[in-house]
């Protein structure tokens, strides 16, 4: 568990540092935090619907994918990106190299792999698929057969 990110800030796509707060902190201090440019970390068990009405005030959202078998983050990514049209970044943190295809297609815009994958060439582990069979938040680069 030592390589799990315990983030207090994260770099956005412009390489600027953005402060991160936990979902609990966000919920408890919505009024105050909405005025600041912060990001929120959402874990699998967090009730993402609570954040729906406040998306405009969030710069980015970090979805925690540490638990390999817990797939709730994929639905969170879908809801944020596709249904609620969240315009900020959706960053998959504590990500696993074997699950990148699912994260990205669900709507995650960038990711930070767990430290245990450092040094691995991501291209070697890219899924290598040329086709997909279903509509998804992000099907770029895939021939769509459905």
């Amino acid at each position, binding site marked *: 568990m030592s390589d799990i990110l315990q983030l207090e800030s994260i770099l956005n796509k412009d390489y600027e540092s953005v402060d991160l707060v936990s979902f609990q902190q966000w919920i408890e201090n919505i009024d105050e935090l909405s005025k600041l440019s912060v990001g929120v970390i959402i874990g699998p068990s967090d009730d993402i619907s609570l954040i729906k009405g406040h998306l405009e005030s969030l710069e980015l959202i970090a979805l925690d994918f540490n638990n390999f078998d817990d797939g709730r983050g994929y639905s969170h990514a879908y809801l944020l990106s596709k249904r609620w049209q969240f315009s900020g970044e959706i960053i998959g943190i504590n990500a696993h190299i074997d699950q990148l295809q699912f994260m990205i297609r669900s709507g995650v815009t960038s990711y930070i792999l767990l430290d245990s994958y450092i040094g691995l060439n991501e291209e070697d582990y890219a899924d290598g698929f040329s086709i997909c069979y279903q509509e998804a938040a992000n099907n770029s680069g895939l021939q769509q*057969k459905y």
Partner: protein
Amino acid sequence: MYQYNAEDSNFLVERVDQFEKQLKRHLAGELDDAKFRSLRLRNGLYMELHAHMLRVAIPYGTLSSPQLRSLANVADKYDRGFGHFTTRQNIQFNWIELPEIANLLRELSDEGLHAIQTSGKATRNITADPLSGLTEGEIEDARPYCELIRRWFNLHPEFSWLPGKFKIAINGAKLDETALRIHDLGLRLVRNSQGQLGFSVFVGGGLGAAAMIAAETASFIEVEDILSYLESTMRIYNLKGRRDHQKKLRIKFLVRELGAEEFSRLVDEDWQQTKNDSKLKLNLVELEQLKKDFSLPIKPIDLGSFEEKVDFNYSIWKKNNVRCHKIGGFSIVNISLTKLGAAPGDATSEQMRILANLAEKYSEGELRTTKRQTIVFPYVRKDQVFNLWQSLEKYGLASPHQGTLAQIVACPGRDYCDLAKAVSIPIATRVQERFNDMKKLLDIGDLNINISGCENSCAHHHIADIGLLGMQKNGEEYYQITLAGETLHETVIGKKLGPSVSGENIVDAIENVVNVYLEHRQNQERFTDVFKRIGITPFKEKVYE
């Protein structure tokens, strides 16, 4: 017969390539056991008691002769010369060496076969009536819908890491050969009052330790809306399903805890957001193409003055294993693989090749697998049934016991399975030895006995006339008996008879149950009808007297 095109075949190869990389990392110590377990299960690979087991998908139970030959080759090259047809229409190989798995999967992919999502916490193989398209009164052949839904949930980015496994069955016939209401999700093709085609949706069924019948969450969903409705169902499950308790992972527990009404409301609320999304509509053009691909390869024939052959064994076999076809001049033939002492559903590579050849000669090169672990030849000319029977007889595949009580469904049990608490196959053998009088077997008729070696209920014991569940008591094997389960006309979970019975006494108990049935049967009543009429008490009194 429908076949994958070049794009689909390429997808299978890409999936094998991906898994091979993961396997190499695991063997090199770069991918830990827990993660590899999750990844290998999604490719159908289990670690069993003695070796790795691979489950290969037979989507909706439809198989071609070349595909069956390919499975036979795998049995010879990578297993010990046999495979095991399962109650969910798939096939399993029990003696696979881990380093060989990629080559094996590549060989299968040449014939459009794969093991994708045959295990793991994702959408599994979609099952269908093995008689799809063949019988009168059917609403529609379910297989084109199975194929479109199978594709849609194939490596679905949002729903590949669900709380638990997710089994779907689709039925388009009057009788329910699929047992759809014991599935996580069952779809029944229906027409509404305007004659429009759609689906009734049932969610939250399952067997196992807590057997439940699926609740109807929608009485009519239009065909083109089904994908978005299924996505909403899975989304609610993915987000709210239990992940904190290993024995409560399946959707049935969520439906039970929320209540079917509240679960349906949540699904509907989610669905209202997506039902008008044109990109989530089922592709009706593709559906029409698939209907053509799945259309029957035969036309009615007039056999004129054809006369049936007279042979005692043939007529017994025919009575139990040959059914009317909706196309004039044709029959549907059921072939059992059950042999005394062998696991029901086991087939040797030689048997597979024989069946593949016979299917080419007599059944347009198509075969179907069934949840009774038998093989169906869907297109046999009536005037060739006798010739087929002779060939089957020659190869030991036409025992007159087929279609009788001796046709037992059983899981591999403790002889092979790591999870099993008790043996299954030896019990099946003992029952077959006890009921070896052909006259009595014919008198009893088609009475199902299903034997599961543990609560996972792989042999579907809850829905058999007589179900046995293996368990351990003080280090000894015992069997809990359930009676009068069924799914064909209605879905009923079998009733527990009473205290479990020791392995030593279980065959006597079964015989007693059968004798009570025969004693009380009026006319040609089925077992379940007798049970409904007389109740459980006479059975209980006889077994525990």
